[in-house]
């Protein structure tokens, strides 16, 4: 512990802003023991020591998680708009299917369309069977070898 003269010198330099952190700690300790050394310095140091006890009350959030949450909160409105827009798009698409031009009110016209469609499919099937038959003839020798 420094003697009184040293402490008074430190206090004097404290007011001049010319003390080190270590000297200021010595000054605080000395003032706690003898407040008459400088009541104003004691009051100030007491005030600042109490302020040092102030703490944050909010729990520490891990920044990486906070960033994810922050990004989510920023873009969730955009995501909601996209979902609604996509929903509306598909809904309208469904509506278009029910009102296509190949729906007929006249049964005769509908029957004619069905016949035409079946003839088209039949023609394609015949063509396919012919192609398949010629291909089968080509692989027949291999079939004879293995069987």
């Amino acid at each position: 512990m420094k003697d009184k003269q040293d402490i008074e010198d430190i206090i004097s330099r404290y007011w001049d802003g010319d003390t080190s952190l270590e000297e200021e700690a010595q000054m605080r300790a000395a003032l706690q023991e003898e407040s008459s050394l400088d009541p104003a310095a004691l009051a100030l140091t007491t005030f600042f020591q109490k302020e040092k006890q102030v703490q944050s009350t909010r729990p520490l959030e891990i920044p990486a998680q906070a960033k994810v949450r922050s990004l989510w909160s920023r873009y969730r409105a955009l995501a909601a708009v996209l979902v609604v827009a996509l929903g509306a798009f598909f809904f309208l698409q469904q509506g278009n299917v029910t009102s296509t031009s190949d729906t007929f009110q006249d049964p005769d016209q509908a029957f004619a369309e069905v016949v035409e469609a079946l003839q088209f499919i039949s023609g394609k099937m015949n063509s396919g069977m012919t192609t398949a038959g010629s291909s089968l003839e080509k692989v027949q020798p291999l079939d004879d070898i293995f069987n």
Partner: protein
Amino acid sequence: MNRPPTESHRAVFDREIAPLKDKLFRYAMRILGDGPEAEDVVQDVLIKVWQKREVWQDWNNIEAMCMTITRNLAIDRSRSKHRMVKDLPDHYDEPSKDATPDQLTEAKDVMGIIKQAMSELPPKQKEVIHLREVEGHTYNEIADILDIPMSQVKINVHRARLFLRDRLNKEQLEG
């Protein structure tokens, strides 16, 4: 794109940055004078510091850098809201429970006088005195945080202390 946190970054964060939370809060509080706003600033600071984890090794003093970022974000927020800088809330200057009623009254008066005087300090002096007296930074660190020459730090500390002492002496003499 952010990489997932590596163990080493996580460890550095937990050891060197997370413990600064209260200090950053007090500094933001000193500038903003609003607890919830100061808490928001601290969270923003921690996110910003984490995003810069790839350059931590280039920082000479992580704590000083965190304080600088806190200062910048708090001042930005203060300007955006045209906020007047206030002082810390009343319950922070409660005297000891062992004191007599007279001592309690006197202590409250003294703390009230200092608090009022603190609120009247120019912003630069208020920040400098806070960083020195409350957070215990060296003059060099304060100069780094505030980006001013060390001579200015000393002058501001000197003037702030004298202002507070004169106000205290004057009020007590008048009281």
